């Protein structure tokens, strides 16, 4: 079909008018620090509620799901329109939690593999902010090797019975639906016995437990599925073809903020304002005249600017097909290392206040906690090691690592020193 696409200009005016009339400007704040504990549950829930509200407002204003086809409640526009929206939203509130993992990978997977009925039911609900999704992907037993999932799904008439445990779901305790990778056949090779399901998180048979991080934060959860019954109509993709879905799922996850499904106001990625933050710490430490401190401030500022430029380049490169889809791993690797470096710089600038502080230290306080959590930036959302594998093997085309589990029936795969198959 060949309908007239809204011009970028009229779109910009429309978006800009709505935003300025309806959204709240974000108050200048320091770098969003690594999972600090000082965030109370009530605050969290209030923010979630407001974000659902904002998502609904965007939907009603025709600004939700820019690149989602119209039949599913989206706008059927182009990545260029999404970029315009991101530019116009600079400095305004937006539904952070709705973006990842709801819009990508979950919504992306639904669009790609969901049945017409599944799409029509869930996509609009997501665009209206009624459904926040989580990915039930990682398991305690298999870290980066998500295809090694042990969660089992056994068919029972028109239903499936799921048992197992999933972990590292951010905020499953306030989310609605889950996309879940489960094993439906143990006698075939690892990748050939998987199937994908979706179900409401608040179902009998799902127990959600908060995971306490070393800094006291409890934003991650672990879920225990015991005899969870899921109707076959909530299966996504074919039985035992779950890895066809899964590999695209992981691709959409890696795309993260580079996905054209994601709304991401310019200048609001984590690294935002690094230089200014470091400057504030150094000032509080009375070190602005110390060349060593200046060097560190400059390095943080450099990493921020380079990181933003790289993210844009990779996004553009993938969009224009001048770069492989897998190149998003390059941005991920850079960001992980830049963020850990920034946490270290802040810790160093804080001097002796890095390890012990009092609240009245203001800008000097708390950086030791971020330092303790530093590696979270290189672990969460796919480790930097996995990113390095993807870059060397899929971007540079170097030989794949040996995977002895590839062709074994899954039940015979070595799983640990104590269970070497």
């Amino acid at each position: 079909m060949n309908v007239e696409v809204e011009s970028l200009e009229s779109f910009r005016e429309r978006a800009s008018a709505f935003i300025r009339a309806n959204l709240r400007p974000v108050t200048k704040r320091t770098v969003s620090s690594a999972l600090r504990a000082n965030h109370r549950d009530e605050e969290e829930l209030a923010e979630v509620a407001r974000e659902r509200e904002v998502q609904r407002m965007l939907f009603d204003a025709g600004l939700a799901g820019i690149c989602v086809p119209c039949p599913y409640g989206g706008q059927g526009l182009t990545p260029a329109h999404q970029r315009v929206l991101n530019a116009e939203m600079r400095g305004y509130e937006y539904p952070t939690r709705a973006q990842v993992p709801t819009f990508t990978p979950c919504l992306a997977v639904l669009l790609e593999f969901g049945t017409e009925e599944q799409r029509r039911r869930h996509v609009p609900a997501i665009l209206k902010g009624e459904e926040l999704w989580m990915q039930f992907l990682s398991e305690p037993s298999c870290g980066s090797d998500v295809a090694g999932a042990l969660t089992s799904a056994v068919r029972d008439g028109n239903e499936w019975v799921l048992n197992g445990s999933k972990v590292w779901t951010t905020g499953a305790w306030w989310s609605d639906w889950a996309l879940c990778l489960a094993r439906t056949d143990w006698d075939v090779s690892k990748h050939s016995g998987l199937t994908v399901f979706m179900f409401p998180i608040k179902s009998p048979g799902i127990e959600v437990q908060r995971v306490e991080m070393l800094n006291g934060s409890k934003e991650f959860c672990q879920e225990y599925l015991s005899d969870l019954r899921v109707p076959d109509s909530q299966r996504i993709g074919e039985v035992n073809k779950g890895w066809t879905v899964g590999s695209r799922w992981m691709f959409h996850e890696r795309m993260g903020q580079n996905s054209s499904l994601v709304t991401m106001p310019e200048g609001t990625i984590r690294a935002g304002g690094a230089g200014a933050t470091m400057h504030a710490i150094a000032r509080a430490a009375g070190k602005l005249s110390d060349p060593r401190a200046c060097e560190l401030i400059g390095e943080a500022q450099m990493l921020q600017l380079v990181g933003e430029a790289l993210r844009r380049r990779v996004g553009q490169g993938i969009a224009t097909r001048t770069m492989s889809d897998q190149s998003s791993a390059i941005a991920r690797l850079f960001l992980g290392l830049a963020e850990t470096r920034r946490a270290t710089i802040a810790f160093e600038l804080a001097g002796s206040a890095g390890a012990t502080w009092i609240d009245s230290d203001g800008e000097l306080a708390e950086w030791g906690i971020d330092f303790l959590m530093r590696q979270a930036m290189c672990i969460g959302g796919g480790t930097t090691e996995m990113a390095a594998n993807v870059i060397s093997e899929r971007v540079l085309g170097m030989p794949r690592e040996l995977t002895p589990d590839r062709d074994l029936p899954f039940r015979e795969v070595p799983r640990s020193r104590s269970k070497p198959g």
Partner: protein
Amino acid sequence: MLLELSSEQELLRETTARFLDANAQVAELRRLRDDPRGFASDYWRRGAELGWTSLLVSEDDGGVSSSSSGLVELTLVAYEFGRHAAPGPLVSTNVVAGALSAAGAHKELIAGLLNGTSIGTWCVSEAPPNDGLGNMVFDIAVHDDELVLNGVKRPVESANEASHLLVTGRTAEGLTQVIIPAATKGVSLIPMRGVDLTKRFSVVRFDDVRVPAACLVGRVGEAADDVERQLQHALVVLNAEALGAMQRAFDMTVEWAFDRYSFGRPLASYQALKHRFAHMATWLQASHAIGDEAARAVAERRPEAALLVSAAKAYIGEYGAELLQECVQLHGGIGVTFEHDLHLFLRRLTLARVLHGTPDAHRRRLADLVARKEVAS
């Protein structure tokens, strides 16, 4: 840690290790997380009976340090502290005990430190921007037979538990030290927050604190050498504690790499990770090497002691913390949970990196020491 221990040394290490196995279990450490004191006085008293606080005190004062070997033996205790992330003001109490014994005064207080009924701590560091080494501004004024203290010290270890404070400051003549009861009028504490689960620190304010000349440790304005000596003691013990934590975390992570399988192979079979373990092993051995050489040099008061101990602090502070972070990374998500033990040691390293001079501060001190040598030669 030392490559070869004498049987006495091995006994001391072993006794401490067994005591901490029993009394500093991870469950206990987690429990102490919310305890304002961070350790039980009974725990400390019993530790003191094992000799924890006697190793820098001369025999005349009831200590065991006849020879220069006391400090080296203390590193074995500190090493076990690190391996267990154990609670207790090991550094400060020993520094104070050693300082008093060296000054040959305050014997009754020394006795209390030795049997663990008293705790002494050292008020030396100051807030940024005076947290670099030797930029102390704390004021001590001499009024005929009285000394008047004014200023703020932070962080001060276990100040909330301490019966006495060893305070380092400046008089017109130069560095001066006094030992005073923590309860002295004009002394006030603000408890600090921090990265470690059990180590407690405070900001200690001194507002016109007046004490008799009898509180002096050494002579007015002549404490520079003693302060340097105390700093060296503190650094040696701190480094040994860091080494214990590094070794423990490294061992845990090697085990994990053999146990944990990914894609049907142990993590230990992935060359990219193997090479990172090789680098970690190198940092670890290098830290052991410089830590032990520095300890020996300080114990024997060798001229290169200052150089070596700052090199050790700069290296262990930098690479020790990086080693711990690598251990976290190699553990993946579980490594940043409160449930896993790894962070107990990461916390200890993060603290050790900062106390008594960051790696940066000690690199600069090394440059100063080199410069002095060059000017001299």
